[in-house]
C-alpha cells in the first residue's frame, strides 16, 4: 500500500515487495504518532519509512536546545542518552505505523481537523500504543555530537515476543557513525 500524508514526498525507494513507497513525515505528523511533547519530542523529520519494519529520520542539533545549556556549560555536547531516546522514538514511529497499517487504516493518523472526514481513526490510538523502553542491551557512543550537527537516525525492528520488540538503531553525522544501540521496547498490551 502507498503511504500518503498531507506533506508526503514520495521517494524512489520501495519495500521488499516493490509496492510500497516510502514517505517523509514532517514533525507534526510524527507528533500524531508519539505521546512525547516538548522538551522531549526529539525527531525533526522521518525521511524513510517502511511501517512495522524500518525507518530513517533526521534530528538537527542546535545550540538553542535547552539541554545544551547544562550539558555542558562552555562545552556544549548533545547527550548520548538522548541519541538512544531518538532511536526509541523512531522505533515507536515504526511500530505505530505498522500497527495502523495492519489494522487497515492509514499509517499516519490524519490531523484532528480532517480526522472526521477521512475516517482514518483518531490521533490518539497510535500515540496511546507507545509503551516503554524496556532494555538497553548495548549502546556505543563513537563520536561526540555538537551543535550544528545533523544526526541521521536509522532503526530496524527485529523479533517480537508478547509486547516486547527488539530494535537495532544507529546514528550518524555525515559519514561517521556516532552511535549504535540495541534496545528492547514495548507496546502497551492494552492498546493492541
Amino acid at each position: 500500500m502507498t503511504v500518503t500524508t498531507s506533506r508526503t514526498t514520495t521517494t524512489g525507494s520501495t519495500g521488499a515487495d516493490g509496492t510500497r513507497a516510502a514517505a517523509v513525515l514532517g514533525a507534526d505528523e510524527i507528533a500524531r504518532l508519539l505521546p512525547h511533547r516538548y522538551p522531549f519530542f526529539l525527531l525533526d523529520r522521518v525521511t524513510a519509512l517502511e511501517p512495522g519494519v524500518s525507518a530513517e529520520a533526521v534530528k538537527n542539533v542546535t545550540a538553542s536546545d535547552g539541554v545544551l545549556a547544562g550539558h555542558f556549560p562552555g562545552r556544549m555536547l548533545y547527550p548520548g542518552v538522548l541519541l538512544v531516546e531518538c532511536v526509541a522514538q523512531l522505533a515507536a514511529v515504526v511500530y505505530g505505523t505498522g500497527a495502523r497499517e495492519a489494522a487497515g487504516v492509514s499509517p499516519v493518523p490524519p490531523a484532528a481537523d480532517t480526522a472526521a472526514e477521512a475516517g482514518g481513526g483518531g490521533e490518539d490510538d497510535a500515540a496511546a500504543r507507545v509503551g516503554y523502553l524496556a532494555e538497553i542491551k548495548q549502546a556505543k557512543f563513537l563520536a561526540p555530537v555538537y551543535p550544528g550537527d545533523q544526526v541521521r537516525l536509522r532503526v530496524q525492528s527485529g523479533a517480537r515476543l508478547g509486547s516486547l520488540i527488539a530494535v537495532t538503531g544507529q546514528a550518524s553525522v555525515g559519514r561517521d557513525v556516532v552511535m549504535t544501540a540495541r534496545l528492547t521496547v514495548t507496546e502497551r498490551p492494552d492498546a493492541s
Partner: protein
Amino acid sequence: MTMTRDEATARARARQDLCGTVKTLLVDRLSLDVEPAVIGDDQPLFGRGLELDSIDTLELAMAIEEEFGVAITDDDTVSLLSINRLADHVEANR
C-alpha cells in the same frame, strides 16, 4: 517399535548435547554469572530458579531462533520455562 541399546545411547547423547548447547547459549546471550553445567535440565529459568526476568524472554527466543532456526512465538512461550522444554521445542520443530 523397540530401539537397540546403541540407538538409545545415541539418542540420549544427542539430547544431552542439545541441552548443553542450549545452556551455553543461555549463559552467553544473557551474560549470566553461572557455569552452564550447573544449570539443571528441569530447573525453572524464570523467577526462582535461574532468576531470568520477562525481558529476557525476547533475547532467549532470538538466540534459539538464530542458533537452531526454530522460532518461538506467543503461542509457545511455555517452551521457555526450562532447558528440557526448550530442547523439546527445538527437537520438535527443526
